[in-house]
């Protein structure tokens, strides 16, 4: 079970979190064409190795976090508040 270092609560076990998917996808403008929306809704990369992803600390501070995780080793790099990512 992974240990995710929440910037607000400290390192906490994975069971306190809810996975939120790929952090790299950006919601398109409503005027964007169907293809762009289809891509956003249905298609995700499945990288082997480094991955930026969203986790909600649901049993903690309820922050959505952007977590860098290696999908092979589960090693966790940086963790930050998603709302501060300024993207």
């Amino acid at each position: 079970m992974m240990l995710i270092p929440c910037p607000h609560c400290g390192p906490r076990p994975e069971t306190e979190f809810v996975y939120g998917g790929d952090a790299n996808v950006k919601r398109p403008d409503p005027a964007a064409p169907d293809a762009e929306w289809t891509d956003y809704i249905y298609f995700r990369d499945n990288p082997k190795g480094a991955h930026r992803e969203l986790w909600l600390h649901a049993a903690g501070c309820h922050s959505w976090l952007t977590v860098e995780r290696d999908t092979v080793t589960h090693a966790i790099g940086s963790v930050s508040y998603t709302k501060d990512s300024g993207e």
Partner: protein
Amino acid sequence: MSARQPNRSDTGGWLIDRSRVEIFTFDGREIPFYPGDTVASALLAAGETLVGRSFKLHRPRGIFGLGAEEPNALLTLGAGATLTPNARATMIPAKPGMQVSSQNRWPSLKHDAFGLLDKVKAVLPAGFYYKTFMWPASRWMTYEKYIRRMAGLGPAPRARDTEQYARRNIHCDVLIAGGGPAGLAAAEAAAANGQSVILAHARPSFGGGVHSMPQGPHRRWFQDTLAGLEAMPNVRLMTSTTVAGYYEHELLTLSERVRDRDSAAGTAPTERFWEVRAGRVIIATGAIERPLLFANNDRPGVMLASAAQGYLWRFGVLAGQAPVLFGGDDSLYPLARALKDAGAIVRAVVDLRSDPGLVAAAYVADGGKVIAGAMVAKAHGAKQVSGAEVWRIDEGAPHVQETIPTDAILISGGFGPSLQLHAQSKGALEWDESLGAFVPGVPNGANCSIGGARGVFDLPAAIADGVAAGKAASLPERDQADRPTAPQPWELPNPTGGIRFVDLQNDVADKDIALAAREGWHSIEHVKRYTTLGMGTDQGKIAGPIGLALLAAATGKEVAKTGLTTFRPPATPVTFGAVAGGHLGEVGHAIRRSAADAWHESQNAVFIDAGLWRRPQYYPSNGATLGEAYRAEAAAVRAGLGLVDVSTLGKIDLAGPDAAELMDRLYCNTMGTLKVGRGRYGLMLREDGRVFDDGVVFRLAEDRFHLTCTTGGAGAVYQHIEHALQVLWPDLKAYATPVSEEWFAAAIAGPKARDYLAAIAPELDVSNEGLPMMRLAETMIAGVPARVMRMSYSGELSFEINVPADWGGHVWAHMISTGNSYGLTAYGTEAMGALRIEKGHVTHSEADGRTTPDDLGLGRMASRKKDAIGVRALDLPALQESGRKQLVGLVADDPAAAFPQGAQVTAEALGDQPRPSLGHVSSYAYSSELKRMVALALLKDGRALHGQTVHVVSLIMGVAAAAKVTDPVMIDPDGERLRG
């Protein structure tokens, strides 16, 4: 040696206390033992070589190993409420009065009726069950009960387990798995550096391989090291504790056996299950010896040489009075000498090497018998080995040398590291050709394997490993020279053609693996499942590597490229009781109760789970059944007045200057224009256009909304809102607070609802003008401040009343007592469901994650004038196509017809032809208004079918009923009842 312990020697016995003799029973016979014995060592000492029958063929089996790798000696401990099946005799300490029984035999171990199965092994090859019982299904029904009786291990206990179990969580700097010499050295070195250390050892006493050796300076080292560790406050020493699982980021699970199940209870639990989060992990779980294959290699008396060595030095027990040793390296000779010194007559050492070298020569010079360039090709005897048939294989064609009378064949095919924990942590594995074994490669996570667990078998080298690992230094180079020159056991010929078992526990023979390969199963994962190789409770600790090599040979691949099966926790079996801990029965999971729960219970309500909540499903007055009760409750609502507890509905308070803007983005319909004090039904969509949740929203102030959502969806909706606020639009100034538990909520519904409301809320103007539909008013009820919302789920004139949760019980009681003169009837979720089905209101049965607003007939709610989650997807072509399933109502033609559970809908009645499905019934109920069954259904282009007759069918239930397709709103389509 005594008459009762014929195999007990005066030599060895480091772990036993010879000062007193205790007794346990095995199949009713008294077995004497010394404190410190395992059940296995005591049985061996008493000459009980036959201890069980094999899983599939019921062949007689004896003790084969020394520890957790034991495939045969699975026994049942205790009886009744303390019965534990499949206990490993090699791991269970013998205790006075213990009741031990053999398994999988009838009527007795020595005379087993199903032993005949062994004679028909030819008709039970690999995949037999797959091939035989696939079709027709009815055949399986006939065979199953016989097969279930024949196969299997111990009986599952029938009585409820009365024992106590505990779960603990703990952190440490270093967790060391295995308290042999390497683990002890590692613990000492890590603790000396000031780190907090847990040393877990599966057996009752530390030492491991130290105890399988004669007297020597290592004993002093062991005693001093252990005494040093016991004195250190930063070391937690855990015996009888198995490290069962290794999970991500160094979370490990430990199973600790605290006391015997049938011993006096006291306050201690039987077992403790530990979750340990370690800074780093040192794996010192040792190595496991490989057997050698020959015909009838499963006979009682055939044993791993290392096990025989262990039984001698640890327990002073001889594996046999006249053993034959069989192997291919120098380790055989010290063992042969030790057994001889301990009183055994060593018949011969059969050495695979044609030129065994100096150690063997010295043994011969001292009068020992060595047969070089030879193998044991077959074991004679049935319930006990009686002879070893030795064949020469070094020159020309294999030929018989002699058959040696013997009662034990001790075999050694080299050692392989115990890889379980390293592999569970997803560390890489490397094939070591000279060792003939996989060894740990690059680790994943903060761990390292030391000593035997990485292929270092020499005692000083293993201790050096431990010291280095304890200091977190890099490990010494593995010395290539000190390794035994192991033969490759899978390469041995089978000149007699007899059966050779690879997996003793599951009765998998070498020819089963060859057959699987011939039939096209080339992946070890497939072969495992097809033959059941390695699928026993020993997890194939012995069988796995050999089966793998045999498959590699059969498919012409290198062993290294054939790969291993995935290692999964637990490394050794863990009881369900230990995993469950105290989470049993009433405290199995948390229960959320409404403030009126005590009243529901006083009315003998039947409860139904809704998430963690429990809700009254119906109130069975006068012994009414579910069907009778809900029909009466629903009819009472339509005719007069009903009261239902709706506290479980999700409630979220949304506030902030941008709250209105956020509402517009969360709901597919317009919410920003809602006036203060008014409410509106809303739909939330997922970004893919499917309905996510629904509920009524009230605007409490310009910058504040009160959202309701479904009971089951409350948690997910809150997360969804936080996602919108923190991920999608962090610039919006608003915040959400879940307030479900803040409020007690009850709905009153029925023609008398207004009169009744006036009585309980005398300060409130309850007229149509004073409190129109979808309005919120604040007033006092039963002396408590309350919100009254006029809204309806049942289709009747209805009000929902919210009061602070702490006052819920008080207000509910007041409502019940005031309601008597109005004929107030409490109703449960089943009647609520029937009422909403009649009105075509959807729940998650209809909004099932596949349906869009338009599918549910709510397409007009989705506003295209703003950006809201999920609205853009509604324009994608796939959601515009014809042929989508649409919500309709179904009304049974025949008032007596039943709608079956899980029904499909067809256009034509079922004859003997299959019919295409138009769709399915999502919800159904008896309509007290229409006096027949009604249903909501999702049918292909269903709105075009209004007025047509369809058939509601269930092939499983054997039911079919004709029904008319209607609008989902099946009663009061104009909503006149809502006005009251």
